[in-house]
């Protein structure tokens, strides 16, 4: 305890973040490179002559991996760079990079909280469990193709939040521009970096200069112009991917059949579903799991936990946010407005970007900012003495806070279970890869790569989920 007290609240917060991040990174290193969705990209970069060629070759068009609907040159260039640097140690390179990204995301989030007091630390402890326990975060660690580009965007967003709170100056401005460029060339939702920069500037909380904001805005305009006018890259169309709609997942052809004449209604549903998913953990990937489970008479505990935790936290954020707006009460620190405004802006923008189809991991950046808003709201409650002392029993408030924090900590712990289940599935996917007898001894680089990845996966040891009992799946899901 003395060591803990001597540590200082900021160091303690970093310590917490480091432990949580390292433990999840360890899980990632226990997973093989997944077969589905990752192998085609690996084979593609294997054929490419170099990183620059990969970058240029993915600037849209029929020859590009993204075709005419995706512009992600930096994503594929990154995969190529890692592939070449790996020198055959593919799992170490890609899973190692994934683990490093995850650790960076958690640490950047902890840094952005700017913990100064032990009260801040308490709110940060809660916020870290929200950051890693929210269902949108799980999507950034369960899969990697072979890099999880959604997690990359979360890292870029956390970088942006840190930059708007930095010392300022031309270095900060350049860093903001570079972060935006890197983000937007990695994944379309990288535009959220601009949303954070603009929202922070609009509420007067940004250390990025007006010139810096203008530069980032100019880069956004240039990106949109080049994408839509020069390269003629559009957006994913209706039916290109499966998507949830009310109580079930709809296949692409069914989506076209139902909404082909009026896709706008489906897009509105996706936007609203994405917003509700972050705020209330329901629906998830567009499907109202809670309602569906209720109707079949079997609501698993994990669904109750997710919905209750998210709803309570959202109500807390709304309440404190409203106080902040209407009373302009800055007792809990002057950066609460930054968190509330940027979260609101990112939530709406992230949902808008995912209009074509819903998927939990697409709104992972909004989920990360949600944790920041939760931090600001929780910190306010901890500082609030006057109102709560009169209206509510002190014991009730403590119990409610403990229960809410407990639910998030429980969900955060569940991510480890999800990863070991995923590792089991990935290993089996490779084992089930149908081997053409001639391919087993074929001398081509592609065949050698597939054999190497398959053997790496098969040689890995790990737990068998069914031997862990039924309760982890019921309480944490898989």
């Amino acid at each position, binding site marked *: 305890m003395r060591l803990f007290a001597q540590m200082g609240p900021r160091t303690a917060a970093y*310590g*917490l973040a480091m*432990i*949580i991040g*390292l*433990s999840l990174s*360890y*899980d990632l290193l*226990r997973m093989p490179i997944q077969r589905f969705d990752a192998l085609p990209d690996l084979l593609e970069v294997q054929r490419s002559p170099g990183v620059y060629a990969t970058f240029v070759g993915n600037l849209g068009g029929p020859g590009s991996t993204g075709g005419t609907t995706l512009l992600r040159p930096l994503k594929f260039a990154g995969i190529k760079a890692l592939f070449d640097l790996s020198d055959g140690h593919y799992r170490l390179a890609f899973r190692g990079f994934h683990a490093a990204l995850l650790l960076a995301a958690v640490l950047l989030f902890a840094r952005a909280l700017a913990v100064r007091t*032990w*009260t801040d*630390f*308490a*709110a940060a*402890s*809660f916020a*870290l*469990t929200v950051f890693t326990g929210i269902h949108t975060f799980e999507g950034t660690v369960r899969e990697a193709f072979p890099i999880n580009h959604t997690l990359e965007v979360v890292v870029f967003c956390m970088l942006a939040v840190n930059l708007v709170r930095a010392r300022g100056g031309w270095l900060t401005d350049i860093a903001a521009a570079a972060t935006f460029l890197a983000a937007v060339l990695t994944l379309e939702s990288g535009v959220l970096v601009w949303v954070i920069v603009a929202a922070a500037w609009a509420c007067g909380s940004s250390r990025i200069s007006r010139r810096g904001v203008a530069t980032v805005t100019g880069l956004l305009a240039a990106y949109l112009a080049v994408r839509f006018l020069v390269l003629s890259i559009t957006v994913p169309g209706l039916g290109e991917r499966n998507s949830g709609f009310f109580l079930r997942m709809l296949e692409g052809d069914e989506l076209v059949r139902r909404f082909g004449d009026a896709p706008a209604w489906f897009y509105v549903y996706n936007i609203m579903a994405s917003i509700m998913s972050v705020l209330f953990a329901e629906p998830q990937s567009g499907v109202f799991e809670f309602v569906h489970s209720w109707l079949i008479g079997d609501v698993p505990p994990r669904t109750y936990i997710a919905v209750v935790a998210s709803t309570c936290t959202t109500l807390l954020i709304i309440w404190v946010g409203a106080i902040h707006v209407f009373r302009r009460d800055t007792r809990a620190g002057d950066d609460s407005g930054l968190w509330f405004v940027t979260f609101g802006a990112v939530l709406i923008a992230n949902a808008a970007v995912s209009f074509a189809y819903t998927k939990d991991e697409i709104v992972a950046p909004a989920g990360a900012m949600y944790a920041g808003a939760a931090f600001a709201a*929780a910190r306010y*409650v*901890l*500082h609030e*003495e006057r109102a709560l*002392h009169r209206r509510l029993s*002190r014991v009730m*408030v*403590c*119990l409610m*806070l*403990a229960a809410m*924090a*407990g639910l*998030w*900590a*429980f969900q*955060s*712990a569940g991510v*480890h279970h999800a990863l*070991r289940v995923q590792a*089991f599935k990935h*290993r*089996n996917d*490779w*084992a*089930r890869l149908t081997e053409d007898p001639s391919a087993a001894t074929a001398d081509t680089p592609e065949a050698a790569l597939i054999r190497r990845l398959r053997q790496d*996966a*098969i*040689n*890995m*040891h*790990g*737990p*068998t989920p*069914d*031997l862990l009992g039924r309760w982890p799946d019921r309480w944490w899901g898989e």
Partner: protein
Amino acid sequence: MRTGNWRAVALAAPGCALSAGLAVALVCAASGRSPIWPDHRLTLSEAVVMRADADIARLIGYGDDPNAPSDVRPGLLADRTVRVTPLEAATLSREAGVLEHLLRNGALIEPLVWNRLRCLAGGDESVTAVLERHRPAGAVMRCDDVSPP
């Protein structure tokens, strides 16, 4: 303790407890005994029952005999430990795909073995279909003396 302090403790305690547990898990993992990633060390027959295709491929690749019986822990096939061959494990757990895979990767099936498996398969159509495809010459189905393990 002030009111605000109690609230802070209530809010921070779960996250700190989680981190403490994870720190212990990391230390255990460094010594090769992670409580989050236990190594279940399946036998080949257990891997068949659990549909752990990667473990099946690894164990056979490391030299495990696909015809030799091995223990299956309680709760998987029966309430006690049973000793069965991988082919029997696949048949009893109705894993037709694994059965086919074993037969294509070294598992031998002679008339007596085939008879036992065919009787253990009962009415499962997918498993019986695989067994009929691999029926050895002279194999006859006679289940009077066949009982589950």
